[in-house]
């Protein structure tokens, strides 16, 4: 009732709701609605019994008998596969606490993580969660049992105590934890230098894990339309310097774009999906786009046109 009354289109209004479970419920409804309108069904469709054929699908898995019965193309390749193992990994470092609006990035990312976990859980997939900052904070092993989703919510809402982002060691730890093939959903701002975590990402994808990265940024981090001439302090390492945003904007934008390109290129090189969203985007839209993205395909219209 409350969930339907709330709009998932306004992230600020949604994030004003304190309860993470309720937020995920609202976003979930938006995700379902978005998926029904789409010809794509997302990664979860690979594990259903039948799925409608979509252009680009491997024709080897087409179910010809079903085609003969219904005159429609269905894929049946995975109808005998077991449930998917998934792990949602959330970055809770201090850089995620930045927000130019009323809410920081971490709240947005936390809601996305909770919604993804709920989405997978409702498909009867085994799902787990992990938090990291300068080290792996908490890990909820992927399982499917009653109350497990609430356990994940409780873990996601825990306040972190660390400061820096140590993405490389976190990925190494994930590789150690996940012995079986796992869908790894990585949610972070990916602001640390690429070379500090690219090798660990390669090791993870080489272990046949399906890695999908959701990069969450504040709009101000993209354009620097924020702040005033003052002493600025880094949230993670505490370094400070005098910054006049008017003066620094141009150089900043070029550097952050270069960094984002490097991030995207790194994921592409390692065959992992990457999707960038900002905290002013409706969460359901962000998730739908994320779910619809195919490996190696552009995730947004802007990327496609580029």
């Amino acid at each position, binding site marked *: 009732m409350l969930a339907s009354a709330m709009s998932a289109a306004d992230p600020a209004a949604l994030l004003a709701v304190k309860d993470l479970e309720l937020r995920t419920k609202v976003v979930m409804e938006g995700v379902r609605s978005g998926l029904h309108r789409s010809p794509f069904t997302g990664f979860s469709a690979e594990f259903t019994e039948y799925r409608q054929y979509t252009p680009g699908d491997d024709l080897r898995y087409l179910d010809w008998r079903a085609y003969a019965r219904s005159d429609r193309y269905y894929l049946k390749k995975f109808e005998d596969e077991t449930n998917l193992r998934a792990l949602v990994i959330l970055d809770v470092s*201090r850089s995620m606490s930045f*927000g130019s609006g009323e809410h920081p990035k971490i709240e947005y990312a936390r809601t996305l993580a909770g919604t993804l976990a709920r989405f997978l859980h409702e498909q009867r997939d085994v799902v787990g969660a992990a938090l990291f900052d300068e080290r792996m904070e908490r890990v909820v092993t992927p399982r499917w049992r009653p109350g497990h989703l609430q356990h994940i919510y409780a873990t996601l809402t825990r*306040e972190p105590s660390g400061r820096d982002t140590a993405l490389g060691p976190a990925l190494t730890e994930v590789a150690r934890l996940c012995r079986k093939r796992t869908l790894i959903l990585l949610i972070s701002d990916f602001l640390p230098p690429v070379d500090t975590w690219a090798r660990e990402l390669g090791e993870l994808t080489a272990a046949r894990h399906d890695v999908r990265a959701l990069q969450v940024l504040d709009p101000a981090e993209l354009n620097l339309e*924020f702040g005033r001439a003052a002493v600025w*302090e880094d*949230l993670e390492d505490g370094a400070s310097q005098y*910054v*006049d945003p008017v003066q620094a904007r141009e150089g900043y934008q070029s550097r952050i774009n270069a960094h984002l390109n490097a991030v995207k290129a790194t994921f592409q090189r390692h065959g992992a999906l990457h999707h960038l969203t900002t905290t002013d985007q409706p969460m359901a839209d962000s998730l739908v786009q994320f779910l619809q993205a195919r490996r190696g395909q552009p995730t947004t219209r802007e990327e496609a046109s580029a």
Partner: protein
Amino acid sequence: MSLLSPWFLAGLFLIAGPIVAHLIRRATRDQISFSALRFLSPSTPRLDRRSRIQHPLLLLLRCLIVAMLALAFARPYWNQSTPPTANADPARLVIVLLDRSASMRSPGRWENATEQVEDLVENLEPSDQFELIAFDGTSETLISAEQWQQTLPSERAGLVSAVVREQSPTWQATWIDNAVARALETVRETNELLGGGAGAELNIVSDLANGSRLAGLASLDWPDQTVVNLITVDELEASDGFTLQWLGWGADQGQGAPARVRISGPPAATPQSLSVQLWDAETNEPWQEPREIVMPTTGTQLLALPISSDAPSTLRIGLSENPAELGGSLYIVKNLPRELRFQIWGNDDVRDTNRAGFYLQSAVSGWQDPVVISSTEASADTPALHIVTDQPDAAELTLLQQHLADGAFVLVLADSTQLIAAAAQLAGETGWSSQVNQPAQPLLFGEIDFVHPLFASFADPRFSDFTRIRFSTTVDISLSADTATQVVARFDNEQPAVLETPVGDGRLVVWASSWSPRETPWVLSTKFVPWLQSLAERATGGTAPLVVTDLSNVDRLGLPAGTAVPKTTGVHTLPGLNGRTRSVALNVSPSELQTGALGWGAFEDLGVPLANRDSTPAVGMEGSNARPESGLVSESRQRAWRWFILIAVGLLVIEGLLALYFNRSSGAEPVAANPVN
């Protein structure tokens, strides 16, 4: 602009608070947290021409608020030194009430009071209205507002000085309430004349002695904007001298009635000895040897001084040691017995219990005043009361008419038609007719005029029951239509029972019945003696008058209209009601002997709007209290502090709105870092 409480300006130092707060806030808000500092290159700091103070307008408002509050508490006022203009505030009315009661006779007080009045007048504005009222037991306007208006401003101070210097303290009591009531009448008249309250200032220049009468102040209705200044003329201390206060005559124990006197003085650690002496008031010679008394430590002693019969009629009681300046001696007049003379016109044997003479003799036996009853014409003193019991002959009638014309009272006990005819002849009226009436049932008094002096003493319901007095034989009297005779009582058959008529200077009283116990129990009743005594006292000139009293009780002496009221202490010869003179001793009012200072709380308790209640109550002889009082009065009239408070509140509202605006506008920029720890 002047300040009544300038020390509150120290509150201006609190302005430092907002300034420091603004500096501190700037320092703390100059840090901005960001997540991707490594992508930012350091900027070259620009030369910031702005003041380090953040939001200088807000700071200015906050400083102004503090300053306004400090100024309001300092109670500012403006001196009215500028010449009045047509648009100036309406002139205030200044009324000075100058105490000239007996207590002002203490050395230095009166001189100081007159100086205070002169100082006060010098500080008046030319546009101010002024009235000077001198008061003691009465109030007298010395300078009216009209007289003040008609005097040139340059001559006003001289006028006040001349009028005040003509005055001197009287021996009267201090009735402040009467004087203030009179002043308030002037205030109301002025307000009505000007069509609104212009503000009035009552300055009571007095020693404010304890004995001053204030009770009437409680019932006064104070007009708006009326304030009272109490200007004490002297540091009052209780007098260290001894005073004498008259308490009355004591019971005569055979050696003459003693004079009862209270001696009061300051309390002492050890009993003191005093000597009291009687002086002849006429010759001012000592009449008796001093009498030693011992004053207890409480400082109060009651004394009964025996006054022998051979003492002079007028005396002064004096103290040999340390008499007070005021009330140190006491004048007294001996209470001489008054002889009441009755004459019976008839053949009354005083041993005959059926005749009036017997009961007259019995009734007067216990009287304090000596009574002489005679049955023959006395040559020396004309009796005051003549009682006719038998039919007088023509010569006696002539004599009685003569006595009546001279002012005597004649009582006719008319038990026959002949006596009624004689009474009508004495009254000088014709047309009276009479008839002896012996009713089957005894008659009662049916109607009595208790307002008339004959029966006034029975007016109280406790004494007005005459139903036990019955009459078996009466005389029915018919008066002429144009008669001047007043029917004082009637029988229950509506026939006149007691008549009174003025004849010459005297009065004729007719009793329409016999006094014989066989006819009526009247002479045996408890009402007979008081009735007879009131008649006898009326015939002799009224009740025994006061012979020793004080100057505040002069109106109780019963002086005939037009008599000059004595205003000084001493023995005065005053006229009585019946044309005779008498000696009366007048002393200082006892209230004036209470010379301790009156607390100002007494005025406040009675609702007096004091203007200078916050300042020191008493001002020394050399102290000039005119200027600070003037400031107080100006401040209380202007009440400028209210405007400063209003301005401060207005600034506070503007400051709040501005702060809200700045907060919102700046809040859009740097919400940034709310680090989640």
